């Protein structure tokens, strides 16, 4: 694959990532092939994929429901499957702070997922028609969380606001 081919596909991923971080549904949808009635969009948190025209509505709702979105794509693997069809696989570090999140949960929540993105070239440029996210198996993600706490050891118990700092 030539560097020009790679650059075109990488540019789409970067524009897609920027549009998510800006929570700009219009910019995200501009990169989606809205003419494809069988397009497929499957975020890691959804039980069911959205197909065709339903994709636009889901993207709009996700942008409206987030006060902050982090979307960092890395380790991109690009392939041209046909002159007008491209495949990009990448790893994604994402985070989100929902609108109206309760005061006792002030921090964004996030995870690492893997993405398969397939796009086609049209007169308007490259447009995505298949997007699927794949997180690490939840059983292992939970195990990794326990392992992270073990690394902290015994000296990092969260301080509660209703008691003052006391050293035993």
């Amino acid at each position: 694959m030539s560097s020009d081919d790679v650059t075109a596909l990488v540019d789409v991923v970067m524009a897609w990532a920027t549009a998510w971080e800006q929570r700009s549904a219009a910019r995200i949808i501009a990169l989606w092939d809205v003419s494809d009635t069988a397009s497929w969009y499957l975020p890691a948190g959804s039980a069911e994929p959205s197909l065709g025209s339903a994709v636009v509505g889901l993207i709009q709702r996700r942008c409206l429901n987030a006060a902050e979105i982090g979307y960092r794509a890395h380790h991109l693997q690009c392939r041209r499957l046909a002159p007008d069809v491209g495949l990009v696989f990448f790893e994604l570090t994402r985070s989100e702070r929902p609108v109206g999140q309760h005061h006792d949960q002030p921090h964004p929540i996030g995870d690492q997922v893997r993405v398969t993105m397939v796009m086609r070239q049209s007169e308007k440029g490259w447009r995505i028609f298949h997007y699927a996210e794949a997180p690490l198996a939840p059983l292992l993600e939970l195990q990794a969380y326990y392992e992270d706490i073990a690394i902290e050891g015994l000296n990092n118990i969260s301080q509660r606001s209703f008691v003052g700092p006391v050293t035993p």
Partner: protein
Amino acid sequence: MNTLTQEIAALIEHYVGYSEGMNFEGKRSLWDQDDPSPLLMPEEESHPLIGWAAINAYWSQSRVIMESLKSRSANHYVRLIAPGIALATYDMRWVATLAGPASVKRKPIAADVRVTALLRQKPEGWRFFHLMEGPVDLRAMARLAAERTARKA
């Protein structure tokens, strides 16, 4: 169901059927052997397996980690996205018993994953060159677990 979907759904059923007995040679035979950089993204791996050395090593290790494995697929959805290139999605349930000492009782564990696969048409038939397994994320699975608990209450 059109002919392409029938043909590829049958291949996928064949492929996931090789899980029983952990017949990874069988699985490998349904991949495009001529592709220099096939990609397999198992749900339990931190990073994708790219190339035959990585994929073969993963399959060899699976025999050590699991005592038994069975899989079945459903909801096959297939599209021809370019001449000789098909995109397939399906759900797959796996049931496994992890390896361990015979004295320790172990229950099987299972989960559903959503698979995105890309296949290339070869003289011998359709063959995989990209396969990604995706469970729902931790938050969604916690919700599913809580819903299951509520149904039992």
